[in-house]
């Protein structure tokens, strides 16, 4: 049996309140254990950081839209290529890496779990086919519910229980892990080339407002007792002056209690939602306002969507946003309204250091991380690839750990940031403990995965990252380049007790689990809702109901998380 001792590492395990203690981590049969029998393989971790494996909470890494981004950007794929080796497949792509490459690149950084952020239900099979080809990490998919006709109708009619039963069915049918809402109601409006520009701007014909939809889905999510809260990409993403909408959105769940020990709402890529100004000339950061709101609301968790100043790709189910972006850049534009469900779009984007807007956007992402006091509430993402590719995580870590590095970058971007953001005045520097929270422990907790992931306590999955950094010897504030380098290439990435990466090189490939929620509701209620589903499929979908659900066989190591609803 595979047994492993990680000896004398300096361990950061925030879920278990371990902050830089020298200790051994014991592994047996893919789990962390208390005791071993003897002849275990020993890895000397002295002078090295040991953390739980990284967890990606929001990344567009698989599915139709991601593949659309790959397909229409050969120029992104000539930018970066990795030839096949004895153990790995080949791959290409800088901001839209191919599937195999995606798994390898996460693994090289010490990541062991990743969630793909937006799965249109009708396209679920596609998302899972790609996840099947992403090696190295455990994974899951967020099921889009924003422009869903069933949901809008049930909520409009006040049929919250039926709505819950439908969502329960939808999660099972698509093998989804999370209720994802992107531009609530706006994605239905986009069916007519329109958008919803405020929380009270209703979807045409369905006559339900984003406020009602979000509130309803929050309730549904808690009725179903799902592991994660609703995962919301709020209205007015990327728009001038949108911080007002964001602040209002944070209040929508007020009054609903979380069914588990976690947030009531996960608000994603808030960098894109913290904008002030009413023209691009007075565009400014409102990160401070947003941070204030989060600091006074323990029920909200956000992720940042930090801009990395790269030439990248924007892709989201927020179709109207993508249309708007391409009308600014005049670059190519892909759109894919999905019948009765949602409306993804894609367009390339260059965050140029010379541009005032991009520079302020860069500042905002970091401001959020630094102004929000509790790291458990501000998780690190780039909304890959929207604000930048995930391979830039080590750079963001270095920015967070070093004021000097931020100053150095600030001196190279547009000077407008000194006036229209507060980034220059912030002294705070993250500790390794903070980093461990915003890149793994916080994610595990927010996702309701902390029983098995995001920590190194006994019983946890043996998903471990070791970095060749000696905290007692390095000054991250000064040696930020070193920090960036070391987090880019893990000394070891251990997945389920197997060494997959050694010294930044992949030594073994494996396929991880696919996590999905097996949501259980009352049988009678489910039957009733099935009638509605059958009726609507016959009339309005372009596929037969029988051909809609994703078969479990397509999932690698299908792992269901069962949750019984209160209805």
């Amino acid at each position, binding site marked *: 049996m595979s047994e492993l001792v990680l000896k004398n590492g300096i361990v950061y395990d925030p879920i278990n309140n371990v902050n830089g203690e020298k200790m051994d981590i014991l592994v047996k049969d893919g789990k962390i254990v208390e005791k071993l029998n003897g002849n275990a393989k020993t890895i000397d971790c002295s002078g090295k950081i040991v953390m739980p494996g990284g967890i990606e909470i929001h990344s567009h890494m698989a599915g139709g839209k991601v593949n659309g981004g790959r397909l*229409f*950007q*050969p*120029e*992104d794929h*000539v930018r970066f290529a990795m030839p096949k080796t004895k153990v790995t497949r080949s791959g290409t792509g800088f901001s839209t890496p191919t599937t195999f490459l995606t798994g390898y690149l996460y693994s090289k950084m010490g990541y062991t779990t990743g969630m793909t952020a937006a799965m249109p239900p009708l396209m679920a099979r596609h998302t899972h086919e790609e996840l099947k080809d992403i090696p190295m990490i455990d994974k899951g998919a967020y099921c889009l519910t924003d422009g869903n006709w069933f949901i809008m109708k049930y909520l409009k009619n006040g049929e919250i229980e039926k709505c819950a039963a439908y969502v329960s069915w939808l999660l099972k049918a698509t093998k989804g892990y999370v209720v994802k809402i992107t531009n609530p109601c706006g994605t239905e409006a986009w069916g007519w080339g329109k958008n919803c520009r405020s929380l009270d701007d209703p979807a045409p014909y369905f006559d339900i407002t984003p406020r009602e939809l979000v509130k309803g889905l929050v309730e549904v999510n808690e009725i179903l007792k799902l592991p994660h809260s609703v995962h919301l990409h709020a209205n007015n993403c990327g728009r001038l002056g949108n911080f007002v909408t964001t602040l209002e959105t944070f209040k929508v769940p007020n009054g609903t209690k979380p069914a588990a020990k976690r947030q009531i709402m996960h608000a994603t890529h808030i960098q894109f939602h913290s904008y002030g100004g009413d023209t691009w000339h007075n565009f400014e950061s409102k990160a401070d306002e947003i941070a204030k709101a989060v600091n006074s609301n323990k029920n909200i968790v956000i992720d940042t969507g930090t801009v990395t100043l790269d030439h990248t790709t924007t892709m989201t189910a927020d179709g109207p946003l993508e249309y708007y972006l391409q009308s600014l850049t005049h*670059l*190519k534009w892909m759109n894919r309204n999905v019948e009765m469900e949602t409306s993804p779009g894609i367009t390339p984007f260059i965050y140029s250091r010379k541009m005032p807007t991009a520079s302020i956007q860069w500042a905002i992402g970091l401001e959020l991380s630094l102004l929000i006091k509790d790291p458990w509430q501000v998780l690190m993402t780039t909304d890959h690839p929207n604000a930048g590719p995930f391979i830039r995580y080590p750079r963001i870590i270095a920015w967070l750990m070093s004021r000097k590095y931020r100053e150095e970058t600030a001196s190279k971007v547009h000077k407008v940031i000194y006036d229209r953001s507060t980034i220059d005045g912030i002294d705070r520097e993250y500790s390794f403990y903070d980093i461990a929270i915003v890149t793994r422990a916080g994610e595990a907790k927010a996702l309701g995965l902390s029983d098995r992931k995001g920590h190194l306590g006994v019983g946890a999955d043996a998903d471990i990252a070791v970095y060749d950094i000696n905290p007692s010897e390095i000054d991250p504030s000064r040696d930020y380049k070193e920090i960036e380098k070391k987090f880019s290439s893990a000394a070891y990435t251990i997945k389920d007790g197997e060494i997959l990466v050694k010294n930044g090189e992949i030594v073994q490939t494996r396929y991880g689990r696919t996590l999905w929620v097996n949501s259980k509701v009352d049988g009678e209620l489910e039957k009733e809702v099935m009638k509605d589903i059958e009726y609507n499929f016959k009339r309005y979908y372009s596929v037969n109901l029988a051909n809609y659900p994703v078969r479990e066989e397509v999932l690698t190591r299908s792992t269901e998380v069962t949750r019984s609803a209160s209805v």
Partner: protein
Amino acid sequence: MMTDVILVPKVQHKISLEAEVIKPDEFAGKTIEEIKELPVYFGNTVQKLGDFFEVSGSAEENAENLRIVVEGDVSRVKRIGEGMTTGEILVKGDVDMYLGARMKGGRIVVEGSVDSFAGQQMRGGEIEIKGNAKDYLGGSYRGDWRGMRGGRIIVEGNAGKEVAEFMRGGEIIIKGNCDSFAGVHMKKGLVIIEGSVAERVGAEMVGGSIIVLGEMANLLPSFKIGEVVEGLKIDGREFPGKFRKYIGDFAEGPSVKGVIYKRL
């Protein structure tokens, strides 16, 4: 003083050799033996430059003063001069695809003809082709909206389709005739066609200038007919005679600034 390295092809092959190492930047400072060892790609194999060429002469320290002379037909050798920044290449025969692609400086002279994608996304330097050029001369890579950005290409013979595709700067001169879609998606830069040009010249252009001295096939309906000008002066060059100005391509929108001058 220029010193020469001479390459003489020694084998015939159908499969194209990929030899982006053939450029002064790579050769400079190397011994002839070292140059022979440089990797070239042949089908799914990696081989040595010396397996395909007799190599002689000497490589100066300095790439600037280095000239590579290819004596013979390399119509199955791709990527010669790709990404070169300085020095010279003289090819005394035909050349395969991607000649001088992404070139930044220096000079390439081809006595024969070149295949497609010559000068792709070029940024500087000069390419002179005595024969003909195939398609996408000075064009872009698939999906990329940033084609040639600088430098100059001169073709003594004819050029194929989509010359100057997505051009963003620099200059292309075609002394012979030019096939369809010359200057497609052009935004900046200058294309001079001394012979005649086939249909759809300037298609979807939003800026830049195309000068046609010979015949021009029917212009697209989305161009507007402008005034007649007497003697042209563009980028410091003068063209005598009367020219009809056309503006377009209004398919792209109302504020386009692409110009075609056709000599009357």
